[in-house]
């Protein structure tokens, strides 16, 4: 795979020479994303306002406040750039640029529609893991660079949380990789005759939770806990630099929802409909073979799924309280990682145990059953340990069964 002949798969704009085409592709995708971020701001404010019995932006640009984000951008652009005293200039200036870059280049392997993808790497998901792990560095840069206690604390929290949630994130990603036997996003989408959400719901759940943590949204928004460490690592940033952090956060959330819909909902594909059709003996619709129409339909399907997941993000963000830092880490290391390890083990063994030639639905059913079993066992164990903790907190002793037997047995000897 060569990153510098990039987007060569795109059927759109075939005539233009490759390098031009690549540049155009990059420009188009990035611009599209940067613009959509503005929509996201408006969307978030509106939705959260609705959920909190408010109206939300309703002045600028009609009664829906459609131009509110534009106004925000204006404000941010015109603000003064302040550089704190004693700041490490290198790190301080580098951080916002790097974070935006990192949050943009992950989209390179995201299949928007059949044929509409930056580059279909055979190690696409691995690329995503790598780049998202690189983006952790930027928090450190920001935290250290802007010579400020709170910023450093925020950076530490952020890095601890992100690095530790990398683990279940990647482990949960491994399950679809196992099922599809490929790391390429496109072939994972095409492999989903049944959406993986209904095949390995546990993996989807773990992935969703750790995606929340990765993007640092509620209930895992410790890295910018306003009430504790006033906005964390980007406290010292103002104006456009601050806006870049914000932008990166929105894009990250959107990317996570897009990735979720790719891995577990079939991306631009329409597996459920195809399933129903094939159940009635019809010919399943192959969007990839429909040319430009398929591309358009696929794009809409993809965006619909993505925004559905993004809505769930907002929902959680609007409704859930924040958890403590020790709770976050113990949730990760004591719950998510063991469960996902067991899950991978079970999925792998089951994948080998199922004889050849069993139909897709039967396979899916078996995997689903195993998942449900794991979920129940895990819940049972967690319930027991929670009860033990409560008893310890309440200071109760475990029942010490008696010295009586001992004397008895001693008499017997």
């Amino acid at each position, binding site marked *: 795979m060569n990153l510098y002949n990039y987007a060569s798969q795109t059927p759109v704009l075939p005539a233009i020479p490759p390098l031009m085409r690549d540049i155009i592709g990059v420009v188009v995708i990035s611009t599209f994303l940067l613009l959509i971020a503005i929509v996201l701001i408006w969307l978030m404010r509106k939705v959260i306002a609705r959920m909190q019995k408010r109206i939300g932006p309703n002045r600028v640009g009609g009664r829906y406040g459609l131009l509110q984000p534009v106004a925000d951008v204006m404000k941010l652009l015109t603000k003064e750039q302040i550089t704190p005293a004693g700041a490490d200039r290198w790190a301080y200036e*580098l951080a916002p640029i790097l974070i935006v870059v990192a949050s943009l280049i992950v989209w390179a392997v995201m299949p928007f529609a059949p044929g509409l993808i930056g580059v279909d790497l055979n190690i696409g998901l691995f690329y995503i893991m*790598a780049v998202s792990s*690189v983006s952790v560095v930027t928090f*450190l840069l920001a935290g*250290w660079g802007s010579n400020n206690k709170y910023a450093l604390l925020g950076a530490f929290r952020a*890095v601890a949380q992100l690095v530790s949630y*990398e683990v279940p994130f990647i482990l949960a990603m491994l399950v679809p990789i196992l099922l599809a036997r490929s790391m390429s996003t496109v072939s994972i989408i095409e492999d989903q005759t049944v959406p993986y959400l209904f095949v390995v719901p546990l993996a989807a759940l773990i992935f969703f939770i750790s995606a929340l943590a990765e993007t640092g949204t509620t209930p895992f928004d410790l890295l910018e806990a306003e009430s504790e460490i006033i906005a964390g690592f980007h406290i010292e940033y103002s104006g456009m630099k601050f806006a870049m952090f914000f932008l990166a956060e929105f894009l990250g959330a959107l990317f996570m929802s897009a990735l979720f819909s790719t891995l577990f909902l079939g991306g631009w594909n329409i597996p459920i409909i195809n399933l129903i059709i094939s159940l009635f003996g019809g010919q399943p619709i192959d969007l990839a073979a429909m040319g430009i129409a398929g591309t358009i339909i696929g794009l809409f399907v993809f965006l619909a799924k993505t925004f559905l997941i993004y809505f769930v993000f907002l929902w959680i963000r609007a409704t859930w309280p924040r958890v403590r830092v020790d709770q976050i880490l113990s949730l990760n290391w004591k719950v998510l990682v063991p469960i996902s390890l067991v899950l991978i083990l079970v999925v792998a063994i089951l994948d080998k145990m199922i004889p050849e030639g069993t139909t897709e639905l039967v396979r899916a059913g078996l995997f689903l059953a195993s998942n449900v079993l794991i979920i129940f066992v895990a819940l049972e164990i967690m319930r027991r340990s929670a009860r033990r903790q409560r008893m310890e907190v309440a200071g109760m002793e475990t029942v010490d069964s008696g010295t009586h037997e001992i004397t008895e047995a001693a008499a017997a000897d």
Partner: protein
Amino acid sequence: MVEQILFVLLAIITLGSALFVVTDRNLFHAALALMVSFAGVAGIYITLDAGFLAMAQLLVYIGAISILIIFAIMMTRRLMQAVEMPFNSQRWLGLFGAVITFVVLAVVIGRYWPIAPSADTFLASIPAVDPEVMSGSVARLGVSFVNPDAYVIPFEVASVLLLAALVGAIVVAWPKVEDKS
């Protein structure tokens, strides 16, 4: 031609930032330069069609090791505030040693594979293989890790090593608890 320019750029980035790493006074900047150097090496891998390794390089070196190093720097940073001599007493001798090592290595390499690019010499350019082989390399790698005829034993040993390193690091870095009794 493009490849050569690209290679030279990557090499300059890598070596320059590497020099920065070993010479800079401010350790934090040194760590940043280290990351840049790692990224340059990842680029070198990509020019060698080893994209998987490049990603692994990013994931492990930049995503994990550099973060660790920066954490260590921050935890021991009280020392770094005081501007101090970054080099010890044997720096000139060390420099000499490094240079002479490089000279010897260069001589040996030059003996076997001529430096100057010319079409006729042995391995003057990246040999062309059909894209199937290249795209299948990751799969081959994965198979060879679980193949008893290949690397399954080293693979398992490596996993055990990682576990041992994990436990050992925790144990070593654990703060000493002075017992109350």
